[in-house]
Structure formats: C-alpha cells, structure tokens
C-alpha cells in the first residue's frame, strides 16, 4: 500500500515513544504491551487544556476506538501523525481534519466482517423463526404449541435486502444463499463486480425486501438513514436487522413501528445508546437484542490487536503503515 510521504517524516527512535491510548489500555498487562509509554487520552469530562499542560504535546501516535475517537483539540498536537483505530469503524474520527493536519488514520477492516455476518445471519434466523422469543417463553415456564407459530414463513424464497455491500454485506449474501433467500442490495455506488442486483434506492430496496440487513458504515451521510419512511416501505411482514451502527436507525421510529406492528420484527446488535437501556425494549417480544458483539470473537480481537501493534511498530520504525482508511489512500 502506498502511503503519502508526508505521513512518514518521523525518523526511527531508540527511546520508548509516548503514545495516546484509551485509559483501559494504559494498564501494564494490556495487549498493547510495553514497547510504548502509554498515556491515557483525556476523557469527555476532562479539561483538555489542563490535560495538555500536565502531559505536554509531544505525542506522535494515538490508539483509539473508532466510535470513541480523540478530543477535537488533540488534532492540533503538532507532532501527531498517526491515529490507529481498533476495529473497522472510524465514525468518530474527523477525517478532513486529519487530512489537513497530515495525520494518517488506520483501521482494522476486513478482519471481523465474517464474524459480524455470522451474527447478522443469527439475528435473521432468530427474528424470522422466533428463536430468542421462544427461548424466553420456555424459560418463563411456557410452551407455545408449534402450531401457534403457524404464521411463520419459510425462509427459502423470501427476499433479503442488504444496505451496504462492503465486506460485511458480501459475507451476509454468501451465507444467505444456501438458505435460498433471494438477494438484492443498495449502496450509494455501483459495484460492477457484485453478483447481486442493485436496487435504485434505499426505499426501493426496503419495499422489495422481506428482510432488510443494515451493513453500511456509520458516517454523517448514513445518520438516521433508516427512518419512518423506510420502515413503512419494509412493511408489516418485514424484518429489520442492524449489525452496522445504532446511528443509522431512527430508533424511536423503529420502536414505534415494532409496537404498532407496522414491521414484523427486528434483530439488533447495535443501538443509538450503548449499552441500551433494558426498559426501552421490555414490551417488544418480536425483537432479538445482542450486545454489539458481532465482531467480538477471540480470532478477530487477536488479529486486530496484532494489526494495531504492527502499525505502531512500522510507524515508529519509519515504515509505511498498513490499512489506511480509504479516504486517505
């Protein structure tokens, strides 16, 4: 991967470099190891100016979660040239500001997309075949006669629409195929190499779909993209699955639609607020909820951590970093 030389003006160094990390990673036994002098990023309630006076401005690299980012003021750190995001997302990173300041931003895409797709399919089956709902019922001492689920539709032959045919969306499509689900997708850009038909618009995809799977990135242009109009287009037989970001759904509109049965059900791994309050979902039996763990496998965690460490090592050795985000390539 070619990297703009302006990202690489730092010479190798022998002293232990100081890096910024979320406070949980400052612990001596953290996976980041001891090669770096780890300083906790200021928290949302901290006074950043006071923090700067205490810690100085001599930081060249930051490690963070894409959903957390770094405080605005720290983009101005004169020597900061790398922000390394753990995970695929980088929604909280101000990409334009990073570009203007010559800061390289890396993420860990294409590491956990299959894990997220697995959970997406688990939610598809749970929501359409009532698995988590039945599990709750049996544990509460009930037993619903299978015939009471008579309205349940066969998965085969139903229509699965995917919003965002990136790595996750493609992995969902590959998994859905042997279930004999018909597949279409929509995203803002044509993909000539995609094997599945692209619908003209998000609304057209929702209207066509029995099951709508959200796999787009969290970004300003996807914010609350799934609104009441999209849910109405999905319709009373439709099921919504979200493994993308909570921010892409108007969650109040979704809850209203579920309550009014203007959509049939949902499977949600991500929420507007995380952790999501239990009370928000208490009366909604037709929803399967999971704890934003789509990508949370041992395998993907180990691989992401390795990539972050490799990038730090490369950066401080003056070598090109891997996995720059697409906007900065």
């Amino acid at each position, binding site marked *: 991967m070619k990297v703009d030389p302006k990202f690489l003006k730092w010479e190798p160094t022998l002293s232990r470099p100081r890096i910024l990390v979320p406070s949980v990673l400052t612990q001596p036994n953290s996976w980041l190891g001891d090669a770096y002098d780890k300083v906790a990023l200021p928290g949302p309630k901290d006074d950043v100016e006071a923090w700067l006076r205490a810690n100085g401005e001599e930081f060249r690299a930051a490690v963070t979660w894409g959903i957390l980012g770094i405080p605005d003021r720290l983009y101005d750190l004169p020597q900061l040239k790398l922000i390394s995001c753990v995970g695929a997302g980088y929604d909280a990173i101000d990409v334009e500001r990073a570009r203007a300041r010559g800061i390289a931003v890396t993420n860990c895409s294409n590491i956990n997309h299959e894990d997220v797709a697995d959970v997406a399919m688990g939610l598809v089956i749970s929501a359409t075949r009532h698995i*988590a709902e039945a*599990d709750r019922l049996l544990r509460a001492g009930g037993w619903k006669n299978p015939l009471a689920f008579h309205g349940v539709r066969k998965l085969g032959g139903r229509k699965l629409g995917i919003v965002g045919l990136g790595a996750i969306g493609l992995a969902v499509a590959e998994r859905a195929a042997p*279930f*004999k689900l018909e597949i279409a997708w929509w995203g803002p850009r044509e993909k000539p190499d995609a094997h599945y038909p692209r619908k003209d618009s998000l609304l057209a995809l929702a209207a066509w779909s029995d099951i709508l799977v959200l796999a787009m990135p969290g970004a300003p242009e996807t914010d609350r993209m799934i609104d009441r109009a999209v849910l109405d287009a999905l319709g009373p037989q439709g099921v919504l699955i979200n493994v993308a970001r909570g921010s892409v759904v108007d969650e109040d509109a979704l809850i209203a639609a579920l309550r009014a049965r203007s959509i049939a059900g949902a499977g949600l791994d991500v929420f507007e607020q995380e952790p999501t309050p239990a009370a928000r979902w208490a009366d909604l039996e037709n929803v399967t909820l999971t704890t934003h763990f789509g990508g949370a496998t*041992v395998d993907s965690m180990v691989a992401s951590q390795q990539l972050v460490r490799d990038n730090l090592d490369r950066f401080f050795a003056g070598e090109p970093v891997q996995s720059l985000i697409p906007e900065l390539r």
Partner: protein
Amino acid sequence: MEKPVILAPPQVFRLQQRFFGDHPVITYPEGDLTDWARTEGKDVRAMVTWGSIELPEIVYDLPRLGLISCPGAGYEKIDLEKCRARGIAVTNCAGMNAEDVADVALGLILSSVRLIAAGDRLIRRGAWVSMQSFPLSRRLRGMKLGVAGFGAIGSAIADRAAAFGMEIAWWGPRPKPEAPYPRLPDLHALARWSDVLALAMPGNAEGVVDAAVLDALGPEGVLVNVGRGTAIDEAALLAALREKRIAGAGLDVFVREPDNASPWADLENVTLTPHFGGATRESVTDTEVLMQENLRRFLAGEKLLSVVPELANEPYAARTNT
C-alpha cells in the same frame, strides 16, 4: 351412506372442515384411551397422530381402523408389525419441512456459538452495563460441524453451515457415496472430532447421545438437536452443561413434549425452542395437502401416497372400502 369417522389429536393442524371434508372428526380424549376405544372407537376408520406418540395396544385393535396418518417425518412409536398384521396402512410426511428444520438448526448453532439468545437475555435483564459485559466467542469459520443423521435435514444443515466456512463431517448408520462430506466411523468418533455436533436423527436412535458421547464432544463443544429429544440422555446432558463438560446446547426437541423447561432454565449456555423447526406456513400447508389427498384416496379405496417404506408393499384395499 354412513360417514367414516376420523380420529385426530385436539391440536393437530387446524382441524377445519376443509381438512376433513364433511367426515365426522373425533378428537383424542384426555388420558387413557382404553375405555374410549371400546365405545366410540369402534367406528374410527382413520387416525391422525404424531409418530413420536406411543399408542395403547387397543388402538391397533379398533375394528374398522385402516389408516394411521403421521403429519411429520417420524413414525418411530407406531407399531408397524401390529399394523401389518391388522392391515392398517401407515403414512408419513417426510421431506416436507427439512429445509425449515435446517434453518432452525443453523439458528441454534449461531445462537449457541455466538451467544445470541444469551445476549438477548442479558440485555433484557438490564445486565449490559459496559462493553466488557460479555465474553468473546469463537469464530465460526474453521470450526468443525459434525452432523449425526445425514438425511434430508442433515444434508440441508451441512449445506448451510458450509457457507459459514465450517468444516463438515457426518455419521449415519449407512454410507452415502453421494454425500459430499466425509463420514466418520461412529457417533463417538464424530463427537470427538466436532466443535459443534448437530443431531438430525430419526426417532429410533434412542439415548445414543449419552455421557460418553458428551465427554467426547468436550468442554469447548456445542450440541444442537433438531431430530428427536429421545436421542439424548437428558440427565447426562443436564449434568454435562452444569459441570461445563460441554460448552452449550441448542435444543428444539425434548424427551417429553410439551416440556417443562425448568430443568434447563438456570443454564445460560442453552437455547430452547418448542419443537417448532418444521412449523412454517409453507410446510404445514404442504403437509395438509398430502394428508388430505391420502385421506381421500383411503376413503375412495385408491393407492395411497407416502406409505412408510416398511409397509410399502402391503395390500391395503381389503379394509379401506367397506
């Protein structure tokens, strides 16, 4: 002309006139059928029953009974030798819902390995308090799925799981040269090889999943059952789950159904569903169509569809057309 009487379980299907035409339908009485069979039972010509339910002997002696019609694939509790001796035809509805059952099997595999139902329970009891509230799980790609019983359901499970990157092997009593996955020598060997063991065996495989098989599956292993509950020694499974000698289970079937779920209710690593794998609108409709057609043919003295293989060569005309 006198109308033939049909006996059906109270909850079976929709029990509407359109299913049974204008034939009188008697539903099963509660409890022991013996007294009932001596009185009202004497007029019964055809009976609908689940193949997993044992019938009292007197039912086979009902003087006019000529057809036992099973809505599902299984008929393991029907006494075929008695039926043969008395000229009773037995029909089933195999293959109608294999894909639906396989879909639920994959749902249970995903729920067990990726902790989906457990995550749902955790959120709903308000226990999701930080991003560290939940353990990491294993990646499905590369995990080994053993399928026990490689009929229509087993092979549909394998085809689905292959798309998730799972490695697949199977065991069943008969080799199947056309199967695209390797067959291991026995159930024990399959369990030892497997990370996930999915049971899709017919009801005659009673108690084959015992403590030894569960220990072969091991502490990282997950058991999923969409076949029959009786395949599993449930006491051994409960002990193995409690002692973490296996990692988890997904169960659509139980030894007793409807089941009292309380023995399982304190186990977080289990997903429980009420034997609904095959219960989709489409498969129920297909099953109804087949059963109606069999009933019509039976009453008209025509050749039946889907007679179970063991009785396929028996002559039935004699008692059906009286």
